[in-house]
Structures are given as structure tokens and as C-alpha cells.
């Protein structure tokens, strides 16, 4: 079994108009910049994929990564907890112009909905958001004297993730706090695409250290020395 593909274009094959994509990362930590930019390259060359729904904690920063996808006009909806950043222009302008939809989800509920999607759990109850505007219209129930809100799973057509090390079977480790949503998203997407700084042979990652088992991973592409979103923001980078 070998899940590696030769380049970024091969890694993103099959992502098409109208799909829902989960994109790993919390701010810049874990953002798969090279995979995102490869998707933008394809959109610029072919006009596809557009009309995308993106699931991420944030809604892009500056003029790179998710913000550059929004700028390019590829995104019709964001599902996120915090659509603000040090430079939120890309999302803010389109949102205030009514050109992009927003489903705002509390961060822990977002994580658990993605986890549920990957675990085959259609719905669950959480205390989060009970009695607030974000629970409007959702079923509620009492358990042990306390009120809870029903939330539904989140699934995606594809996930774009950044790992530190992968083996060719798709087992993954992550770097520091760049892990965040990625292990959850890996399980919740039909097509899980991973860029890894290093790809090694099976057995070279200690099984005790594997964070995401390869069963959740479809494709792996090696991207040595990947760009870091926050570092790019700080030098004012733009991807066009």
C-alpha cells in the first residue's frame, strides 16, 4: 500500500464545484498553505473548483491561504467559530456585501460535530450555546437536571491537512499545536488529503507515536519546508 502521490496537483485531484472542504489549522498553526494554493492555481487555470463550503476554525487572514481562496471567488460559505484575524478583509468584505454565507459555530461544538461526523454519530447533546442565539431552532433536552442542545455531525467531501511526518500508509504525526482540528477532520472527510513535511517508509514512525492512523488518510504528498501562514502574514505576503 502506498498513498503517496507525486505532486500537489495530483493530491487535489477530484475536488470539484460545490463540494464541502474541511481545512486543518487554527490561525496559521496547521494551515496547509501549499495544498490551498494548489487549489487556487487550478481554479485560476480552469475555473474549478468554485462554490465551495469551507470548514475551518477561522475564515482566513491576510491575502494568502483561505483568505486568498475567498478573494479568488471560490468560496460561497464558511462554517467556522471565529471569522476574525489580524487582517480579516477578505472574509469581512464579502460577508458584508452578502457574497458569502456564514454558519457560526462555537469552537468546541465545531470540533465535536467534526468528531461525530468521523465517528458515525449523527447527533449529540452539548451544554454549549443553550439559551443563546446560536441555539435558536435547535432541539433541546434535559439530562440530570441540566439543559442541553442537540447538534448534528459535520462531514466533508474532502479534507486538506498539514502533518509533520507521514509514512506511505498514511499514518501521521503533527508538529506542536498545529495538530488542532486535523485528526478530527481526517476521519470526517470522504477524501483526506495530507501534505507532510517528510514521508517515510512504514515502520519508521513508532506506532506508539502515531496520532492519525492511516485508515483515515487517502493521499499523502510531501512538501518539505512548508510555508507557515503566520510567518507569511508578517511579511505581508499575497497569493494571486
Amino acid at each position, binding site marked *: 500500500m502506498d498513498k503517496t502521490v507525486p505532486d500537489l496537483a495530483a493530491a487535489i485531484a477530484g475536488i470539484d464545484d460545490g463540494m464541502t472542504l474541511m481545512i486543518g489549522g487554527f490561525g496559521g498553526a496547521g494551515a496547509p498553505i501549499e495544498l490551498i494554493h494548489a487549489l487556487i492555481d487550478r481554479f485560476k487555470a480552469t475555473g474549478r473548483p468554485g462554490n465551495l463550503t469551507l470548514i475551518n476554525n477561522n475564515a482566513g487572514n491576510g491575502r494568502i491561504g483561505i483568505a486568498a481562496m475567498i478573494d479568488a471567488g471560490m468560496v460561497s460559505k464558511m462554517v467556522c467559530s471565529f471569522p476574525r484575524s489580524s487582517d480579516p478583509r477578505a472574509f469581512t468584505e464579502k460577508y458584508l456585501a452578502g457574497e458569502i454565507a456564514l454558519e457560526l459555530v462555537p469552537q468546541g461544538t465545531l*470540533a465535536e460535530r467534526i468528531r461525530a461526523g468521523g465517528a458515525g454519530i449523527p447527533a449529540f447533546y452539548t451544554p454549549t450555546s443553550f439559551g443563546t442565539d446560536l441555539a435558536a431552532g435547535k432541539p433541546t433536552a434535559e439530562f440530570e437536571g441540566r439543559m442541553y442542545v442537540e447538534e448534528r455531525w459535520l462531514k466533508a467531501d474532502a479534507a486538506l491537512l498539514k502533518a509533520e511526518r507521514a509514512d506511505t500508509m498514511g499514518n501521521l504525526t503533527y508538529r506542536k*499545536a498545529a*495538530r488542532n482540528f486535523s485528526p478530527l477532520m481526517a476521519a470526517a472527510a470522504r477524501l483526506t488529503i495530507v501534505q507532510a513535511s517528510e514521508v517515510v517508509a512504514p515502520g519508521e514512525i513508532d506506532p506508539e507515536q502515531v496520532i492519525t492512523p492511516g485508515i483515515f488518510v487517502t493521499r499523502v504528498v510531501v512538501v518539505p519546508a512548508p510555508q507557515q501562514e503566520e510567518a507569511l502574514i508578517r511579511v505581508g505576503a499575497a497569493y494571486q
Partner: protein
Amino acid sequence: MSKLSNAQIAWRAAQDIEDGAYVNLGIGFPEMVAKFQPPGRQAIFHTENGILNFGESPAEGEEDWDLINAGKKAVTLRPGAAFFHHADSFAMVRGGHLDVAILGTYEVAENGDLANWSTGPKGVPAVGGAMDLVHGAKRVAVITDHVTKDGRPKLVKRCSLPLTGVGCVTRVYSSLAVIDIEAGRFVLREKLAGMSIDELQAVTGAELLVTANVGDLVTPEL
């Protein structure tokens, strides 16, 4: 009227954090609480994005942007730190594993309702982890100026802004007082020595329950 600085409010909140407590500090002003841990006590700080036991910011130029807190600021690790994914992180939050969460606020009501995520329908709404953090921690405390910039009470009978959580706050550390929320009432614990109870009541939007043992709110100059 003199009042505590933000640093002094943060200092006072830090005095109630026990040695070894697991603590989440909201982004912004509450992050300052970490600087004022009493000598000999070491809390373990949790951040939503998947770190337990992170430490101070690194020196400028030493940042590792894969090592950040929920406010996207660069942090460092202390010995015994751990990384985990977002679902585990919020299991710590909602599952009752944190001892204390300390948050900022726009309004807090005598029934424990908190409004700290939205000032209304204008602009782009953003909630982050605020609605999760108010559920699960054994103590949910708020640090805040006692009144808004234009002098209106932030401690109110009922919140007028969109709620973050219902009946969730247990203690308020303000620029004028320390107030517990018990059985739907503001219970005064400490106030600035130079201030009368009537003066404090005049800038508080709901009735203060005054028991026999109201202490002086004393902090160092910071």
C-alpha cells in the same frame, strides 16, 4: 473615584487560583492573570487549541508559530506540557476537568448570565470558544471594569446583549469590588476601602446583597 487598574484586577483574580489548578484564561485582558500567580503556586494553563501547561511568550524573533495560544500569540512550553487535538481540548472544557475559567465580559447579570461575545447584529459575528468555556469549569469567573467607558453598569439585573451562557458565572472581579453570584443574587465580598456601599450600589445595575463580612479589596500598586 479611584479604581483598580486592569493589572490590579488580574492580580486579585490570580490570588484565588490554587496551586496545581487547571486554568483557562480568555483571550485578551484575562491572559494577564497568568503574570500574577502568588509565589509558590503553579497553575497549569489550558488553551483551546490544544496545549496544557504553556508558559510565557518567547522573546521577539524566537516565536514558533506552530506554538500559539487561543489568541494566536506565540507561547512557550513548561516541563510537563502536553499537546492534544480539539475534541480532547473541549472534553477538558465541557467535561468538568478545568478548575477555573476566567473571562472578560460586556455584561454579567445577577442570575449568572454572561454576555461577552457579541455587541449586537452589526459587523461580523465571532464566538470562538467563549460559549464552551462557560460550561464545565468548576469556577467561572469574570474580570471587568465595574462600568462601561461611558459609565453604565456592567453588572446588571438582566443582560441586554446576546448571551454567551445562562447562569454560568460564579464570581466577578471588578475594578471596584469582588462579588459572588449565589442563588440569583450579587453577594458583595470585598470593596475598595475608600468607597461606601451606597457609592458602589449606585454604579451597580442590580441590588448588592451585603453580608456582615465585607472585606477591603486591597492590591499592590501595579
